[in-house]
């Protein structure tokens, strides 16, 4: 069970179960109290994180005394009955009545069950199978008597990913209750009645929930299976390793099931403090990117314009020589890094390249953000998931949790459903996610966030010292918005936390993969901080000059101020200006790419070094709430080196060439030990400096005129991101990309909106300075003059093919 946010003294109740006295918190259900005395009462519909329903009747127990001296005349469902002082419970272990009742229900459950266990995916890990063995009879009186089972056609798709076998279903309603209560996506419901009752979908609304995979996991039979895993393996052939999801900054616990060196599936782990027992479909199904054809498995060197295979030693030597000869070099990393790898990049930049030109922010970013990260994010950790549930108000600034931090979304939905927490979101429109969190929208057009955030200090919003402010990484796109957020927190006393999209981002902040921060949150500007780190690293000194950030590195590469680049895990189309980024790569003198798969970066790199996927290395993801989530390698693959080992190899060769020094580590354990001994910065935190506003972006043609809109965008959870490659069924459940306009804008383009018409039947073409895109249009409550499109759900995405977020675009009607 989930722990409650505030641990207060709870009243306990003492009762007797099977002759054993036990004290449990008030309101505990009998079925869970029994677990305390070691009695497992069989159950199907019961789930500790779902509302009790009492439907399957498998958990019947005898209550000779309900605590008032009187017993229940009939067996009671222990999953719906709270304990009472002095209650006497006899389970199947001591009561023949309870045992017979359970055997009877089990027999009933099996009469219409196909008993196709030998070909069922659930066979071997099936609660029905297991409990039929422990609490059922060996022979079927129904079959002996020639009974005719209810049959249905075998599995039907209820979404591209989820299949339903209605014959196997025991109608426990776990899946429908999960979807309605936890995910807020009531796309599946029970329909029909009697033995013909079945889980059903509405034909126009398939089961396209971001969390649909959880229903497969909690299904107590093999009724729900995934297209991804169906018929792939048997549970008893699988080896399970606990892990941490790498798709967002939430740190959800997962269980990785593998067989003969290959991941077969992933399940949600049970981590009450973080993801409880739920994960998003992306965390569950998004693992095949490491198994796709274009995985790089050996080092390569560019020779005469072509990449050729090379040995590790040769590749290290060539990389080192190339970097030395290229002159000043910089480091760019993406969000997939573990904290250890980010630390290695940070150290490599300072020690081997002698520069602070290192930035992990492979996305639009600003100097204000770097300052914000140093002043408000590094080393912070005073907001937890439990706090989200306990806070009266949670403010979302530039953060769409359902798309960008699914675990936070589920926690906020839970909090809102309990009626404790009011979610307030500064966003351009009321998304489905916000509606499901019962959130209130404070509308803000792109660029207008500063005023909207400032207005939250008004008493009507209830942002008090108990409130929590969650800041998304997208807020960096508007100058002054991060400062406004920090100001709001300072003025109201509310706690503030930064929620990046990617798993490695927070760890990269802590590890110092920033131009102005050293590892452990040490401000580069502080001489004592530099001395601290230099002493720990055994170097004379560290470069004192603040480094270039990602944007400046690109500009310097293009200009020729920088010659060399070490780059790992960056997708050019995620960067602020993909075209400029590609041009810079082309111009750069020498590019060393550490990459998992062939990309646009490896296509132009001079040395390509394969790195280990998540499964092949240990590591740590630091979550948005500052939790270090360590995980072990799933596979032992000596040919698969983590980034840190590759960097150590290059550093050794550079040191041999007289540049820098060896990094002093070769394994994850060594890096962890070094990070541990270095410890966090204990000096003062730098103050937030918003800096100068950047030059206003070049207004695109027609800005401010009719038909011109400010572009709002974010990435949907399931989109064309490269870490979802290789799993077509997952991608097929993505929300289809649409253009969102407000009603007035829609009507000015298309004429009067016909309310009877289903959404998305008209097409609009959005044109920006980098290209245009035609998508179906849907009306949303956007402010005037704002258009929204998903950032990475078509082509190469908004940044590459449309315009920079916040800039001006035009919208026209289009025909197919």
């Amino acid at each position, binding site marked *: 069970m989930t722990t409650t946010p505030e641990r207060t003294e709870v009243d306990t109740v003492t009762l007797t179960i099977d002759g054993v006295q036990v004290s449990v918190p008030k309101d505990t259900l009998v079925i869970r109290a029994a677990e305390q005395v070691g009695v497992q009462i069989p159950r199907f519909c019961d789930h500790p994180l779902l509302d009790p329903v009492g439907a399957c009747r498998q958990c019947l127990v005898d209550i000779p005394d309900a605590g008032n001296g009187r017993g229940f005349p009939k067996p009671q469902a222990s999953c719906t009955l709270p304990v009472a002082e002095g209650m006497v419970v006899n389970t199947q272990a001591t009561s023949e009545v309870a045992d017979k009742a359970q055997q*009877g229900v089990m027999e009933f459950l099996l009469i219409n069950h196909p008993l196709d266990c030998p070909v069922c995916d659930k066979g071997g890990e099936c609660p029905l199978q297991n409990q039929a063995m422990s609490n059922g009879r060996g022979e079927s009186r129904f079959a002996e008597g020639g009974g005719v089972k209810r049959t249905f056609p075998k599995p039907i798709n209820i979404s591209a990913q989820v299949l339903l076998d209605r014959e196997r279903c025991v*109608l426990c309603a776990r899946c429908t209750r999960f979807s309605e209560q936890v995910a807020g996506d009531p796309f599946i419901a029970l329909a029909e009645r009697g033995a013909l009752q079945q889980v059903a979908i509405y034909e126009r609304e398939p089961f396209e929930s971001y969390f649909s995979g959880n229903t497969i996991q909690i299904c107590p039979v093999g009724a729900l299976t995934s297209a991804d895993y169906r018929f792939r393996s048997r549970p008893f052939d699988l080896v399970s390793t606990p892990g941490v999801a790498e798709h967002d900054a939430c740190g959800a616990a997962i269980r990785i099931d593998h067989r003969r060196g290959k991941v077969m599936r992933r399940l949600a782990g049970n981590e009450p403090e973080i993801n409880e027992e739920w994960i998003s479909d992306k965390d569950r199904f998004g693992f095949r990117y490491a198994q796709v054809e274009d995985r790089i498995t050996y080092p390569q060197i560019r020779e005469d314009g072509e990449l050729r295979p090379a040995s590790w030693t040769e590749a290290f030597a060539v990389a080192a020589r190339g970097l030395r000869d290229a002159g000043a070099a910089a480091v760019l990393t993406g969000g997939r890094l573990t904290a250890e790898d980010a630390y290695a990049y940070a150290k490599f930049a300072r020690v081997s390249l002698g520069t602070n030109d290192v930035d992990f922010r492979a996305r639009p970013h600003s100097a204000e953000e770097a300052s914000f990260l140093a002043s408000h994010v590094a080393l912070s950790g005073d907001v937890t998931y439990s706090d989200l549930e306990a806070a009266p108000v949670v403010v979302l600034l530039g953060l769409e949790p359902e798309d960008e931090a699914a675990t936070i979304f589920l926690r906020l939905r839970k909090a809102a459903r309990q009626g404790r927490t009011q979610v307030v979101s500064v966003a351009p429109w009321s998304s489905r996610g916000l509606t499901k969190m019962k959130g209130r929208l404070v509308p803000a057009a792109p660029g207008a966030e500063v005023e909207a955030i400032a207005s939250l200090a008004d008493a009507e919003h209830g942002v008090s010292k108990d409130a929590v402010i969650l800041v998304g990484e997208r807020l960096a796109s508007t100058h002054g918005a991060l400062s406004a957020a920090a100001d709001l927190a300072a003025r109201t006393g509310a706690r503030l936390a930064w929620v990046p999209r990617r798993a490695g981002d927070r760890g990269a902040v802590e590890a110092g993969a920033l131009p102005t921060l050293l590892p452990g949150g040490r401000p580069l500007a502080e001489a004592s901080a530099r001395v601290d780190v230099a002493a720990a690293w055994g170097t004379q000194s560290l470069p004192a000059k603040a480094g270039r950030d990602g944007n400046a590195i690109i500009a310097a590469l293009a200009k020729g101020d920088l010659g060399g680049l070490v780059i790992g895990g960056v997708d050019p189309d995620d960067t602020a200006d993909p075209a400029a980024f590609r041009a810079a790569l082309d111009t750069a003198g020498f590019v060393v790419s550490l990459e998992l798969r062939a990309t646009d970066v490896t296509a132009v790199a001079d040395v390509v070094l394969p790195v280990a996927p998540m499964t092949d290395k240990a590591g740590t993801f630091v979550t948005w709430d500052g939790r270090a989530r360590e995980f072990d390698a799933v596979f032992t693959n000596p040919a698969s080196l983590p980034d840190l080992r590759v960097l150590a190899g290059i550093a050794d060769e550079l040191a041999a060439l007289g540049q820098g020094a060896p990094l002093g580590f070769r394994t994850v354990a060594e890096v962890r030990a070094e990070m541990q001994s270095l410890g966090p910065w204990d000096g003062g935190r730098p103050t937030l400096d918003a800096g100068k506003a950047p030059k206003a972006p070049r207004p695109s043609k027609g800005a401010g005129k009719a038909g011109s809109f400010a572009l709002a965008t974010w990435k949907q959870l399931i989109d064309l991101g490269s870490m979802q490659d290789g799993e077509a069924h997952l991608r097929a459940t993505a929300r289809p990309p649409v253009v969102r306009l407000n009603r007035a804008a829609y009507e000015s383009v298309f004429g009067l909106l016909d309310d009877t018409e289903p959404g998305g039947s008209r097409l609009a073409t959005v044109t920006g300075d980098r290209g245009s895109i035609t998508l179906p249009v849907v009306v949303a409550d956007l402010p005037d003059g704002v258009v929204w499109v998903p950032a990475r759900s078509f082509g190469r995405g908004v940044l590459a093919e449309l315009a920079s977020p916040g800039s001006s675009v035009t919208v026209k009607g289009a025909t197919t």
Partner: protein
Amino acid sequence: MTDTLTPVLTNNWDAERAWTLASYEEHGGYAALDKAFAMAPDDVITAVKDSGLRGRGGAGFPTGMKWGFIPQDNPKPKYLVVNADESEPGTCKDIPLMMASPHTLVEGVIVSSYAIRAHTAFIYVRGEVLHVVRRLQRAVQEAYLAGHLGKNIHGSGYDLDLIVHTGAGAYICGEETALLEGLEGRRGQPRLRPPFPAVAGLYASPTVINNVESIASVPSIITNGAAWFAGMGTEKSNGYGIFSLSGHVANPGQYEAPLGITLRQLIDLAGGMREGHELKFWTPGGSSTPLLTPEHLDVPLDFESVGAAGSMLGTRALQLFDETTCVVRAVLRWTEFYKHESCGKCTPCREGTWWLTQTLAKLEKGEGSESDLDLLLDQCDNILGRSFCALGDGATSPISSSIQHFRDEYLAHLSHGGCPFDHAASTVFAPAGATA
């Protein structure tokens, strides 16, 4: 205890156009309103408590006590919901009442709502009985137009809106919490209790759910006094009730009499059994009440006596079957009904009725063996008291009671290689003198 008929609810049924407001008022209709409005709401509740009126929907829970459970300090609105989803096989009292005199119910709704301080009331009526629905709707409209409903009723300052809601055809919606689900627009499946409807019923607000006949009886209690009502019936089962005689009886119909009357008296009133035949078995209150035999003809039809006889008074739906009827066939039909109507929420009822039907069908065809009777009884034992609501319990009643009373007839099917009865002989159009 009196052995004569006591027409109260049925008193005006033979009047010209009895369903109209004019006819109803001519017979003194809506007089209870002013009398009730002159009383404090709590006094109305007390009067109903004192009358000893017990729920007429089958369970017999004291109506006044149920009203007293409504927490009046709860700031949410209170609701009265009339359960008019009469669907039990054999039960046919509420629908004739609403057909013949819908205003009796409407008047009851007003007085009852006033007592529990509800300002919105609902009549959840079975959707299949369209003619009745129309009469109800018209009656409500007439009541509004006459100022019996709406704002400031009769100048009392009391407001009430009454909504007639039609069900979509599910027996389970007669179960009060399933009814509330249906009324709220959801699938009709019973809710988990607690919370009980009195605390969190319709729209999670305090709600009283009463049967049509219970509510329709309230105006007479107010008009004639609790003592008048309590003076009828037996010691613990006060008042009158409608007894619905159906089946192999000379004059089937509604007989309104004090509780405690016996079936023997009722059959006499109904002109005896079908000519030339005699009673074989009967249900005291619909198919969900264990069936009884001629040896129970003199059991007083009140809650306690019928319970002591091993059955339940239920809805006083007296289905009478003579010796031409095959009990196995009758029970199979009922079981098929329960299988069809099981909502599917809980395992014992959903799967149990599926299996019971198959076992019974086999027995009726003379297949199977004597051990199948034990199997049937064991299945019933695994359903009774194990299912989510009373539907499952009801499904077992005809089976276990019929095996108790007619085990030999089941065995006769096996030895006969099928049903030994001439099914045509049990039909109402059977030629005189037809025998089994």
